[in-house]
Structure formats: C-alpha cells, structure tokens
C-alpha cells in the first residue's frame, strides 16, 4: 500500500470513527506550525490514534519536529503515520495496560530492529515493572552495533533483577566500551559479567543469557 493510499485510508477511517469530533483544530499545538493541508492530515492521524487508545503526544511532537526542521508537509505526514503504526505495533506487543511511555519506548525499540515478539518477551520477563528504560536501552544497544538478538537477550537477562538506574548504567558502560574500541558483543559480555557479579541478573536470565567470556 502506498503512502498516499495509507493517508487517504487513515483519513477516511478517522472520519468514520470520529464523526462526533471535528477533524480540524484538534491539536492546538499544531496551529500555525504546519502547512494547513499537512495539519489536517496529522490531525486525522492523531484522532484515529486517540480513539485507538494510543498515545498522541508523540505524534504531535513528531510533526512539530518536522516543522522545526523545515520538512515538507508530505514528509511530516509520512513520519507521523509511520510513528502511529509503530506505536500501535508496540502497544499490541506490550499489552493494552502499558503506559504511554512504555509504548513510545517500545516503538523506538521496534525501529531499532526488535520484533514485537521481543517486546512481548521483555514484558513477560519484567512483569510488574516499567519497560520504558529497558526498551530504550535495547534500542541503544542496537544502535552501537550489538546484534539485535544479543541485545534482546541481554536486556531480558537484566529484566528480573535490574532497576532502571542499572539499565542506564549498563547502557552507558557498553557504549563507552565500544567507543574505546571494544567490539559491541565483547563489551556487552564484560558488562553482563559485571552485572552478574552485582547480582543484577534476574531469574529469567537462565543459561541462554550467560555472558560471553573474553577470548
């Protein structure tokens, strides 16, 4: 399906579902910031997302970001639609009770290469605790060159015992090690070793998430 067709379909769906709500001027933050045509289309996407129970602030933010960076209206609409789809996929994977922050972080992880199944595994491994930082760290690890499956295994390994601050420190240490010349996988292994020494690995780690040892 082309972007244009997607846009038209989204707008029609919005019109059908949101008959009681006007399509225009839904988001005052967009007033005067976007070309009028783009603003209407973004409003439509936001309306559909709101009715689907998805967080809408990130969609507006994404549109404002495009506007501040001088993007064309069409490009802004495309970016917002893509984000809406990512949010929907993340919400479906993480569950309907997920917070907006978790969904946004999950979308970021999906964009980094994680699969919906990965997010679902992470949710199961970190039951009762927020996934916002864990999902974001997953995306961060992939961005520094850690293979997606390895990053997923590491984040899940930490899921049972690590606090958010532990995740942040873990991510920072791996990034620094990589910046210093360590291979991403080796850096991950070293830092998981250290996490294991501190007892931060949870019961969900299991044998599959044992850190790699140094060659």
């Amino acid at each position, binding site marked *: 399906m082309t972007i244009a067709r997607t846009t038209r379909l989204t707008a029609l769906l919005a019109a059908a579902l949101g008959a009681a709500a006007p399509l225009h001027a839904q988001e005052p933050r967009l007033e005067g910031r976007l070309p009028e045509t783009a603003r209407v289309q973004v409003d439509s996407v936001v309306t559909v997302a709101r009715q689907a129970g998805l967080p809408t602030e990130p969609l507006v933010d994404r549109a*404002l970001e495009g506007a501040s960076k001088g993007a064309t209206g069409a490009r802004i609409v495309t970016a917002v639609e893509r984000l809406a789809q990512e949010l929907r996929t993340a919400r479906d994977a993480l569950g309907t009770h997920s917070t907006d922050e978790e969904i946004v972080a999950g979308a*970021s992880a999906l964009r980094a290469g994680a699969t919906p199944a990965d997010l679902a595994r992470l949710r199961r491994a970190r039951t009762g605790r927020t996934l916002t930082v864990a999902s974001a760290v997953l995306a961060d690890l992939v961005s520094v060159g850690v293979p997606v499956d390895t990053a997923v295994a590491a984040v899940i390994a930490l899921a049972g015992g690590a606090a958010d601050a532990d995740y942040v420190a873990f991510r920072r240490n791996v990034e620094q090690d990589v910046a210093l010349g360590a291979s991403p996988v080796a850096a991950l292994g070293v830092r998981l070793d250290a996490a294991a020494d501190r007892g931060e690995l949870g019961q969900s780690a299991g044998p599959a998430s044992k850190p790699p040892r140094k060659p």
Partner: protein
Amino acid sequence: MSGRALGAALAAAALTSLPGTPLAAQAIGEVDLGASAVEYQGYLASAAGFLNPTIRYNAPSLSLGAQGSYVLFESGSHILQGTAAGAWTTPRRGRWRGELSGSGGVTSYVTSDSGFPAYGYALGRGRVHYRAPRAGGWLGAATGRSFFGDAAATPLEIGIGAWAVRDRVALGATAVGTWIADTAYLDVVGSLRWVHPLFTVTGSAGVRTWSEGGGSGAYGEASLEVPLWRQLAVLLAGGRYPSDPVRGVVSATYVSAGLRLTVFGRPPSVRPELDAYRRRLEFRDERSPGRPRFALGSPEPGGYVLQITVAGARAVEITGDFTDWEPVPLARAGEDTWTVRLPVAPGVHRLNVRIDGGTWTVPQGLRAEDDGYGGLVGILVIG
C-alpha cells in the same frame, strides 16, 4: 591427560601474560574433576579418572600459576604431576611489549609393580609482543633443562605466533621449532576459540613436520565448556595431541568429560583496562573543541538541568519535544559549560543542539537516531 593438564597450566599463564591486557590483581582457584578414555602411544587404551587443582594469580604485569594433576588408570597405575609457571611483562612501548616467563614441572608415573623415572623440566622464555586493537603477534624463544631420570638435555624452542579477535571468535596461529638432544621438529598449529552465550568451544589443528625423532603427522583437539552456574561448568574434550619431549608428554588420543569448579575468584575481566582507556578518551574529548557533550543533571524543582559542554561557543540552543521543538537558549555556567533547567518528564525524549546558530546536531552522550526528516536526533531516556 597429564600432558593436557600441563598444557592448561601453561596456557593459563601465557594467556594472562598477553601484553596490553593489564588485569586487576586476582587469585583464582579451580578444580577439574572427571573421567577419560585415553590411548597413549605404545600403550593399550585405558579408562582413567583425573583430578586437577589449579591456582592462578593475575596482576597487571605479573601472573603466576600452579597446577597439580592426579590421573588414576583402570590398572591402578597413576600419574602425579606438579607444574608451575610465571610471567612478567615489561612496560609497553607503543604497541610493543616484552615478556619474560618461566615454567617448571615434575611428572611421576607410578605403576603397581615397578617404579618409573620421574620427568622434569625448567624453562625460561622471552617474547616480544606486538598488539593492535584486535590482532597481534609475538616472536620468542625458550630454553632450560629437561630431565628424565638421571639424563638431562638442554632444549631450545623458537617460535612465532599471530592472533586476531573479532566479536566472539579468536583465531591464532603459531609455528614453533624445537631442538632437544638428537630430536628436532617443527609444529605449525592453528587455533580457534568461539565464545557463545551458551558455551565456549576451543579447537586446534596442527601438523608436525621437518621432524627428526619427534614423529610427524597431523593432530587436533576440541573442547566444549558449558557453564552450568557461575562457579560450575561442564567440560568435554577430545582429540589427539603430539608428544612433547621437552616437557615429558607422550602423544595420545583421548576423550574426556568432567566438571570445573571455581573454588574462589572469578575469571579476569578486561574492565580495568577499559576503565583506564575510557579515562584517556574522556580526557581527550574534554579537549576537543567544537564537539558538544550532553549531560543530564539530577531532578530539581522545575525539572532537570540540561548541560552542554563545548569549547569556544558563543551561543548554545537546545530544542526537543519538551520545548515543543522551539529553540531554547542555554545560559553560560562556566568557561565551556552551558545549562538550562527545563520541565522534562520521565520517558523517552528527542532533542537536538545548535552551536552559534549552526546546524542542529546530536551531542555526545546521546544515542543518535534517524529523525525521519533527513537528519539525526538525539534520544534522551529518563527513567
């Protein structure tokens, strides 16, 4: 098995003496326990049980190791062996570093009805190492004395080696020429070590050639180590190794299975090296003009203090979802430090920084992500 035990002790000492790998001082104690089926050259195949306690001490420039080995054969005969090795590495000069090491051992083969001369050796070794970030090589020689009963000989080993490491795989190759009494030969060996999250596989394959009295042919070994718990691992190994007249090892073919119990200590980590290198990198970064670095302060009433450090800037601005993507100027807080307090909620945020009205960039300290608009955006996570 006794030869393997000796090899393991020496390999441990050699590993910890790799130049450029300063390790925190640490003592490690391990015990290998298991059973094997072994066929020494000139003997019938036999089952055997083995117990190998090992202790190693690693410091930044010094490593010491000692290992005992007790091998009990089904006939009731047994081998007692003790080995020790130590290595000292010189301070680094660029990518070069020297190594001086020594090793020695005594092996006693005790049969049920007769004595057997003990074998021993004492060797000193010198090596010069070259180490690049992910590869290196060495050139070295060793000599000393080898004893078999009342007989003694002066061996000489001259070798060259190279290694490379990439992610989970390490490859190595060595060529070592040996001369002892009227025996001489060349061993060319390739090795591989693959560290998988579930297991570690080590393998080697070699060929002995240009031999006079040392035998010839191909040989190879493989081992599998599967961690069961932090202190316990399963060891599986098998293959064929050649004779080593310098250290009193008879060639054999074997398979073995056992457990490795780490009694105390933990395997060495490269963390100290990384920490030291990081400090140097940060020192360099702090003096790199024009490269903004982002830092997030502690939460305060009214939000977080966002800090940008950049040398020589006249104006610093930040924009992000927490500013509705409107530029917000930072105030100078020091010679190269700029700050602003903004209401940033927990979650994932996107931001860019601009220096002196230039292009919007992603400062150091944040992950850069494709912004969907042809540029990059920094990702800030607040838990």
